């Protein structure tokens, strides 16, 4: 059977009363989802690695964010013009994000060079570290606002989305360090993270529930999107990825860790599944996005 061209699917969509958005979720749109996940988790890992003094965490955090930046570039229709995206800081969250991510990547890279091949305990090192933390925070915060300022998609157009994305980026960062620890890298250094990770997992679960409940009452289009998440074509990645891997497993094993020792293999598994859960929720929210029906 002949493969259906994406543009034929798009034309078929125009006959739908509630048209799905596809540009940010299918084909090269998957790169964008991956990019948001990688930059968020990378910046989150950097933020936790700094106070914990985890050098491997710093390296992995930087590389994840750098990989995410490449994903962002490859997603663009005209990547060679990417520099133009920094010109509308006043109104566009993508512009703001590009500046924040660049600040993070450049300062983090120079700091890592100082850390591994020169002296980093200098004034320059301290300034670079402070700027990299600022860039990482900026990177974590801007993402949700990109989605939330998309007026065309009611499911995203809510202040709850930035809160959700910040929580997921922090969770992702903690999960990266826990995964590293589970794989035998600086196990002791991440011990303080375990209660933080559990707290983040529980609070994100609550946030997801609030988000879904609020969106159910935010008009027909948002309600349809929530139904897609809970009962429609996005239900499988939502329940398996976002709920089971991302919430139930980390909360279950995290609670168990309060009472008993968790073997490192299990720790690595929690980190990995938690990351899969984070990726899933970004994917699910993107996939469930629908436009308002036209005519009104």
């Amino acid at each position, binding site marked *: 059977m002949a493969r259906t*061209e*994406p*543009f*034929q699917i*798009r*034309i078929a969509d*125009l006959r739908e009363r509630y*048209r799905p*958005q596809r*540009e*940010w979720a299918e*084909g*090269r749109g998957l790169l964008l989802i991956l990019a948001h996940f990688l930059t968020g988790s990378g910046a989150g890992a950097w933020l936790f690695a700094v106070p914990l003094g985890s050098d491997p965490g710093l390296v992995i955090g930087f590389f994840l964010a750098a990989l995410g930046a490449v994903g962002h570039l490859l*997603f*663009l*229709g*005209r*990547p060679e*013009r*990417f520099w*133009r*995206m*920094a*010109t*509308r800081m006043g*109104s*566009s*969250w*993508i*512009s703001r994000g*590009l500046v924040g991510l660049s600040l993070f990547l450049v300062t983090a890279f120079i700091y890592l060079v100082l850390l591994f091949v020169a002296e980093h305990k200098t004034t320059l090192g301290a300034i670079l570290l402070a700027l990299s933390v600022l860039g990482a925070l900026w990177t974590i915060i801007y993402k949700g606002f*990109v*989605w939330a*300022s*998309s*007026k*065309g*998609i009611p499911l*995203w157009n809510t202040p709850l989305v930035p809160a959700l994305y910040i929580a997921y980026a922090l969770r992702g960062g903690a999960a990266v360090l826990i995964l590293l620890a589970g794989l035998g890298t600086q196990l002791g250094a991440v011990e303080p993270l375990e209660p933080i990770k559990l707290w983040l997992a529980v609070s994100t679960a609550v946030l997801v529930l609030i988000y879904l409940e609020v969106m159910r009452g935010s008009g027909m289009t948002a309600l349809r999107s929530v139904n897609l998440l809970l009962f429609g074509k996005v239900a499988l990645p939502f329940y398996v990825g976002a709920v089971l891997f991302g919430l139930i497993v980390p909360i279950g094993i995290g609670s168990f860790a309060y009472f008993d020792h968790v073997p490192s293999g299990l720790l690595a598994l929690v980190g990995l599944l938690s990351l899969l859960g984070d990726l899933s929720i970004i994917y699910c929210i993107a996939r469930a*996005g629908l*436009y*308002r029906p*036209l*005519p*009104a």
Partner: protein
Amino acid sequence: MRYGMVIDLKKCIGCTGCALVCKTENATPPGILWLRVVKQESGKYPQVRRVSVPLQCMHCAEPPCLEVCPTGATFQHPNGIVDIDAEQCVGCRYCMMACPYDQRFFLSAERTYFPGHTTPFEQAGYQRHQAGVVSKCNFCTPRLNRGLEPACVANCMSRARTFGDLDEPNSEVSKLIRDRGGYQLYPELGTNPSIYYLPP
């Protein structure tokens, strides 16, 4: 001066001639539909009604697509028309997510109507379209610059479309909106579209 359009749903017969003439005038590639006509049914048997509603960029006075564009590729002419400078567009498609009327199209790759073959019309027309960027209706700005009306207005056989200055209280469009109760789509979103519909 703010250009706007009034579409009389009582006069529109749903022939889709405007959609076709838009394609011809702007030589848009396959899959790019700057104008489309949607059929809407309402009521219950035997009181059923079918209305044809032409849809295109609303040239919002407060365009969310412009606000989010990170490059400035989307801009607004002093006459209110919202346009795209393809040379500045990076193809991030943020504007497509921001447009509440789903009126923007992304051309991912060059496409022709006949596989492996480009007609002379396509060869000439496709020079106006870049791959990897977003495009949409521009109220036929090149025609306006030549003193002509947008192609969809000039070619509507039932004269369902009226084009003019919304800021001028005595213009044809202002009078129609006033006298016939012209309405905008999703006014609650604060976009203030420049296309008004007259009730069927």
